[in-house]
């Protein structure tokens, strides 16, 4: 019997599967039997098992802290009032439950973030509408560098305008 996959070698591996009373038989050569299921191999996206890695890091984080057993117990019962995630859940899964969890578990998260990202502070994009004060601060920064440039170019009229704009935004922050 020829292998039903490659049709090039003798079928030496015979597999019978029963799914929902439906019997299927497959006859494969050793090469193809080893590869069976690899048709979709590229679909396998190893997540670097990040969640488990995180959970592991968190575990060790917890281990180094010389907290008493009762403190640990108290901590593990801490529960997010918004989504219901407990610290134990987070430790097991390495996933947050909602936006509020980030504030609630901040003390445990920060050392972890420092280890994963080497930083705990975002310096990138700020949403236009919901960015709030950060957005304004960022805009002030941008205006300041424009101001420096204007002064260099001796474009004093433009510089004066920019100064006014900066002042206006700074007042918004206070």
């Amino acid at each position, binding site marked *: 019997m020829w292998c*039903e*996959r*490659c*049709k090039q070698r003798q079928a030496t591996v015979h597999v019978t599967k029963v799914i929902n009373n439906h019997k299927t038989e497959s006859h494969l050569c050793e090469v*193809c039997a080893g*590869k069976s299921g*690899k*048709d*979709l*191999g*590229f*679909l*396998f*996206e*190893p997540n*670097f098992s*990040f*969640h488990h890695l*995180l959970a592991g890091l968190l575990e060790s984080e917890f281990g180094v802290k010389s907290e008493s057993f009762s403190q640990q117990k108290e901590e593990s019962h801490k529960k997010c009032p*918004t*989504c*219901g*995630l407990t610290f134990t859940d987070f430790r097991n*899964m*390495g*996933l*947050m*439950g*909602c*936006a509020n969890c*980030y*504030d609630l578990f901040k003390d445990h*998260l920060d050392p*972890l*973030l420092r280890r*994963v*990202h*080497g*930083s*705990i*502070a*975002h*310096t*990138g*994009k*700020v*949403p*236009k*509408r*919901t*960015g*709030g*004060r*950060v957005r304004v601060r960022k805009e002030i920064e941008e205006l300041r560098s424009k101001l420096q440039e204007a002064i260099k170019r001796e474009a004093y009229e433009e510089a004066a305008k920019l100064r006014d704009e900066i002042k206006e935004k700074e007042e918004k922050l206070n």
Partner: protein
Amino acid sequence: MNLQGKIKDALPGWLNEPTPDGDVVLSSRIRLARNLRQLSFPHYAGEKQLEEVISQVNSVLKSSARLLPDYVLKRMDGLGQLDRVLLVEQYLVSLDLINNPAHRGVVLNKEQTVSIMLNEEDHLRIQSIFSGLQLKKAWELGTQIDDQLESQLDYAFNEEKGYLTTCPTNVGTGLRASVMIHLPALDIVDQVKRVLSVLPHVGLNVRGIYGEGTDSSGNLYQISNQVTLGLSEEEIISKLVSVTKQVIDQERSAREALLANESRLQLENRVNRAFGILTHARLLSSEETINLINDVLMGAELNMIPGIKVQTVKELLFLNRPAILQNLVGQELTPGERDYYRAAVIREHLTSAKE
């Protein structure tokens, strides 16, 4: 039947020319993780909350039809399994999204350069993908769509931590940028591991597209950023671009070295043998095809096969995939039938390209 027309329809829309640095880079992609402030993250959300995500995104699409024309929302539970796998094979959604189709969805633009996964690990995953090394273009389009959505959605954003994500490894920018590269010459000179092993030291991840870890049977690899917090999006992208350019240089010099000495004949032999099989075989398994495409792709990248363009061979990588193939043939196929149709489609695609 008009097979060429069907082939074009089955291939992902983003797989198009122009392809800058297309002799080494297959595709560039960015993904932005975004969540809605008021709702629990998908893995902790109930059905109602998940549906709320879908309906909020749907109303943004409706009210900004002028700015986001031709954007269509598809529910995963409204598609058959074959159509879902098709989207995965076209790199438009992830396997995670279709493994759990209820209350999941995707928004696609007409060109398929943008896809927004709904209720995958995060409420929104905005993806932008282009052929060749076009990471900046992908970022520009992605961030523009992001702005458009944010003008009406309340994102979970924290002054200190940035965009809040389900997994803390994505927090901050929520940006995952990646490129897919083909390194056949580095593989022949046995230097792939040496070159790629440096990348984790500069904060980049590498994985093989086929196979596990850094073993890749098609010599195809994906490089992506590891860190999402503490760097700006521009910094993340320019770092990935500059490292990718260095890897491209290494691969190109390996190719030149191979062509310059007696190994040229061996290379031509290998490329043309693979081309011969792909244009004449009557049955092709997907594993065998990946290895043959690797050789023929290298041949096209080196201009070794008259009339065969890199683009045509890249398309074979997709035609090799089961759901794309079945979509093309228009029926479900057993593995044995797939091998038959795979050979027929590949033969047709290569011969019609040569004419």
